[in-house]
């Protein structure tokens, strides 16, 4: 595939902390980590999804002004950012693995008519759903 969405960014409160979380605890890989003065372009990738990068960006001047950056920090910490979904093959196994490495789960795995989902947050407050799809839907 040569066209499509390439990068979607998250706001995080601390890029080192976010990097450690997404790489060490979730198993993502670093795609780009470039600093230019105070600004740091940091993206990670799911190991099975080479065409997509997840950006981990800090809301900060000069990209946005200090007051707006402060508001964005608060919005993230309130958990008010839009939903994120991580697809996994085995939700319960991923849950056990991630929880033992210290991921903050907001919801234990629940079976809903064949799909199993759990909820967790990254250290900044971004909320993820981790979903194991039904067998037939996964093969689509």
């Amino acid at each position, binding site marked *: 595939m040569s066209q499509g969405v390439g990068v979607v960014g998250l706001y995080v*409160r601390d890029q080192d902390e976010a990097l450690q979380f997404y790489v060490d605890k979730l198993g993502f890989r670093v795609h780009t980590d470039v600093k230019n003065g105070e600004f740091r372009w940091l993206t990670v990738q799911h190991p099975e999804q080479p065409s997509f990068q997840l950006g981990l960006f800090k809301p900060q001047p000069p990209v946005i002004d200090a007051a707006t950056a402060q508001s964005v920090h*608060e919005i993230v*910490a*309130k*958990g008010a950012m839009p*939903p994120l*979904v991580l697809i996994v093959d085995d939700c319960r196994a991923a849950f056990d693995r991630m929880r033992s490495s210290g991921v*903050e789960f*907001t*919801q*234990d795995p*629940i079976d*809903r008519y064949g*799909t199993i*989902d759990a*909820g967790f*947050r990254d250290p*900044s*407050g971004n909320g993820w*759903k981790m*979903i194991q799809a039904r067998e037939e839907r996964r093969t689509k």
Partner: protein
Amino acid sequence: MRRLLRAKDRMDAASHEKWPVSRLCRVSGVSQAHFARSFKDAFGVPPHRYLLTRRIEKATALLRDTDRPITDIVFETGWSSMGTFGRTFRDVTGESPTQFRARIKATPQKPEQVPACHLAAAYRPDLTIAVSEKRRQEADPKITPEETEVP
């Protein structure tokens, strides 16, 4: 702020349990004196009312997606009595639990494409005023309610 979110997450995960402010403070590590006010500042509603919306949300989901008796649903979602549940549900949603179930079952939908939790959030009641306030307003719409929750 991140600590307050932790308290909110815990209520989300176990909305059927009792969540007095003292327990929420223990979870979040925020002092009791400031908890209710900071929570309302952060999330727009006081903690108790937030819990109420989560319980109503869960109850509406169970009414919609299952055929379980309403008594079961009432207990599972943490209400102390049928009466309290029925009254609160009607005051919040404008119909009784039985009416709601009948209406929603009559309109076939295809919610499978939306992750369940986000579907649930979409059905969460938007409680901008206290339930008691809403009751009073409906009883006599001419009276503008006094703001009782000035922080």
